[in-house]
């Protein structure tokens, strides 16, 4: 289970196909001698997962997405802490009902730390 907090609201979402895609903000310079200098300026945490949620959860997530609300996301077992991040989907995370069901919304959430 994944918990996402913002503005005193906590949502619990069961992620499907949860994947981390962290990226280092870095530069690598290869010298004439072959030596390499690598400078890591920071780390950007990224996570992406699918989910099916109820209307209320879908509406809250979509509203956070629409106003670029910083959220705090964490795996409930504490093993995959994402931290403070933005919901970076290009389109609203939950935009369609699950097939054959008009109460559960399905979609994907993309999170990026900063």
């Amino acid at each position, binding site marked *: 289970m994944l918990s996402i907090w913002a503005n005193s609201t906590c949502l619990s979402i069961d992620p499907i196909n949860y994947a981390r895609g962290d990226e280092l903000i870095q530069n690598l*310079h290869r*010298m*004439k*001698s072959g030596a390499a200098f690598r*400078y890591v*300026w920071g780390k950007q945490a990224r996570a992406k997962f699918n989910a099916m949620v109820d209307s209320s959860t879908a509406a809250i997530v979509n509203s956070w997405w629409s106003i670029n609300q910083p959220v705090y996301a964490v795996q409930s077992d504490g093993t995959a802490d994402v931290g403070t991040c933005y919901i970076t989907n290009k389109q609203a995370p939950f935009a369609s009902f699950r097939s054959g069901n008009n109460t559960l919304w399905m979609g994907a959430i993309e999170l990026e730390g900063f």
Partner: protein
Amino acid sequence: MYSVSSGFISTAAQANAPWKRKFTLGGSDYSARVQKWPKVQRTWNAIKPGTVTIDLTNDDRAFNFFVSAPTNIKATGIVQLGFDYAVGSTEYITLFQGTVDAVQLREGVCKVTLADKFKQLADRLIGDQTTPTNYTGSSYLVHDLAWYFCTSHGGLSAIQSTSNPDIDWTSFNSWTSIWSTDNVRMKALVKGKKITEMLSRISDMTQSAIVIENNKVKFGRYSIADSPAFSLNEAHVFDTQLVIDEREIINRVRVSADYSTTSRSFAITVTQADSTSIDSYSLKEEIYDDDSIWFTDSVSALGTTQRVLTQYKNPYGRITAMSALSAAQTTVGDTITYTDSFYAIDQQSYRVMAEVINMDDGSKTFELDDTQLQSAFRLDISLLDGTDVLT
């Protein structure tokens, strides 16, 4: 060289040095908001306002204070590079400090342009056509004129000690001893010129370096090769360019002196030539005849002719070396040794004449040459009974 600890130097040399970048504006740390870090550039004799532009995220309208309170445009911005050591201490070198010159807000991005201390000297004029500023009543030592331009006209602090916040007193004091010892004197009649322009003329005529370092105007005339501040070689350099430009050769120099503001002519012109260079590369002349600032006598003018001739009578290689940040503390004016097997350069001494630090990708470009390195060895000959002097 930037004043740094030995720990800084040893950390900078590491292949995985934990570099940090810092941007503060009006005392607040906005490092986390920087989208694009600037390139910071300095050249030994480019006396004009230096600027850097930093792209900051403004999605949450944090920088709208520039709109609501435009006086914030006078805020001081500082750009730094350094380390947070594991023990908790922090050591940064200040690459650029200045006031906000312009702010551009566009959608979610705020571009802040900072201008350094030369901006103040470029904003102000000395004299005008109706009321020229007259320094012809006496013969002034070079540094006295530079001091008056910077302080009386430029508004920089006139404190004659290391507590001067605008002028690097230590370097200025050393610079004064050159002109006092040689008794090099000038006069000036300025009719509405920017202070940076007048300093540029002094720099040109005396072959002096005037740069901004640690937010202070630093003066100097490079002389002997100092102890190398760094040994730059293929372990630090990832790209090199070497340019030899015949157009930079000067083998006959004329410096005009003792200008009469009445007759509008110079009473003296000191000329020196190098016959060997003329034979080899044909005649290439340079003249220094400025009617806003001039040497008062032939002895004062002679130093410039000799120096320019020594420096530029032979073609020289100007090296542009792109390196990692391992020599970040090395800066304009420092002597370094350079080694490049491809060009068969083996631990040769050069002086850093310009630098560009790319804070975005963590690289540093050095421009090196040996024109301002008086002990640089160059193969030269002198003819018996000739007038030229081997240096």
